[in-house]
């Protein structure tokens, strides 16, 4: 996590007309971390990796594949993962690349890592997720500034470890691409347009900043996630009651609670905690899993369902057997 913390009190000082307490109660975020102006996703991913190496006594030389999930890379090119190979002291015989996904990124990283390991291409895959969405937000966009937080996470996928990765359910619907988008700056629209329009929810849609169509994303999630849950259970030959704990992408509390009710998951088996981090995009699932392991909520012998869903539109999930 970046050092700088932005509290709701700070946000309300900028938007005095805003009933921040009500919003916080609903979306579940009380503070979030913000990357420094000169701090990048690559910098945060490096920190997360070093913490993983230290805490779990991992030798960077043992890593033979490195993947970084980010939509806010340090450069258009090269891949930030290549830079991290050097900075982390990982062998030059290791493969490395970035992949561009958001809230589904953790699950897709596991998909690729499992494939690399099962096929014998790699033995120790370092998966990093890092995002600085806050840099994409317009200063007046209080909704997204309150929901999103910058952050990074690191995970090692190997031939053995603390949890076995089960079968996946995956999905993509590019027809919803415009619902969560930063339109300008890349090659389709290279130059800023300065355009701003009001959307149906009454939010401003800036071409040059991150735009999220809240109601469209919400409806998509309520369609995709319950169906995905059924598919994960089917593919892993499990019933809902066989799952000991559910860790879904921490989008916001309101959405999570709605999903939980639609999926009929008991409250005590369903993780909701984004009070101090906000929605860290591809890192939420790993941050949550680490929190659960540290608290003892997840312990050996448990089957845990994880899912990610969002920008793309893209979704995916699996079962982790601890």
């Amino acid at each position, binding site marked *: 996590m970046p050092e700088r913390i932005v509290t709701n009190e700070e946000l309300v000082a900028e938007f005095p007309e805003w*009933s921040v307490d*009500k*919003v916080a109660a*609903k*979306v579940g975020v009380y503070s979030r971390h913000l990357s420094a102006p000169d701090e990048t996703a690559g910098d945060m991913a490096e920190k997360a990796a070093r913490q993983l190496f230290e805490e779990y006594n991992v030798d960077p030389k043992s890593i033979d594949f490195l993947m970084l999930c980010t939509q806010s890379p340090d450069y258009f090119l090269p891949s930030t993962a290549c830079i991290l190979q050097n900075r982390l002291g990982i062998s030059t015989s290791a493969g490395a690349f970035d992949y561009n996904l958001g809230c589904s990124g953790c699950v897709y990283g596991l998909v690729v890592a499992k494939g690399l390991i099962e096929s014998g291409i790699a033995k120790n895959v370092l998966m990093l997720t890092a995002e600085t969405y806050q840099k994409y937000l317009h200063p007046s966009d209080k*909704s997204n500034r309150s929901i999103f937080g910058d952050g990074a996470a690191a995970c090692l996928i190997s031939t053995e470890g603390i949890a076995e990765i089960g079968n996946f359910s995956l999905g993509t619907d590019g027809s919803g691409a415009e619902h969560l988008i930063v339109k300008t700056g890349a090659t389709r629209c290279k130059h800023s347009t300065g355009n701003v329009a009001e*959307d*149906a*929810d*009454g*939010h401003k849609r800036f071409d040059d900043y991150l735009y999220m*169509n*809240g*109601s*469209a994303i*919400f*409806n998509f999630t*309520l*369609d995709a996630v319950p169906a995905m849950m059924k598919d994960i259970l089917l593919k892993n030959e499990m019933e809902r009651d066989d799952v000991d704990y559910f860790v879904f992408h921490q989008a916001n509390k*309101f959405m999570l609670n*709605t999903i939980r*009710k*639609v999926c009929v998951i008991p409250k005590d088996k369903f993780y909701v905690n984004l009070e101090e981090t906000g929605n860290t995009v591809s890192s939420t699932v790993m941050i949550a899993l680490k929190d659960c392991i540290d608290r003892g909520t997840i312990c050996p012998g448990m089957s845990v369902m994880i899912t990610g869903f969002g920008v793309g539109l893209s979704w995916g999930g699996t079962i982790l057997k601890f």
Partner: protein
Amino acid sequence: MNMELNEFVANFAEQFDDTDPAEIKAETTFRELEEWSSLVGMSVIALAKTTYGKAITGAELKTCQTVEDVFNLISNK
């Protein structure tokens, strides 16, 4: 039909935290309620989806003036 509308009005009123449910009737222009916000709008979209199994968009909700308009929007889906 009236019974259903009454039930919907009650469900609609439940999406508010501070507004007295008695203040919300079928003919209420909900956007004029002090507590109305885009976040309450999201709750209404969730209500349509979870209780009635119908997806309504933010743009469709914007065309509604009264609670009954929202009821009709969902009923006609």
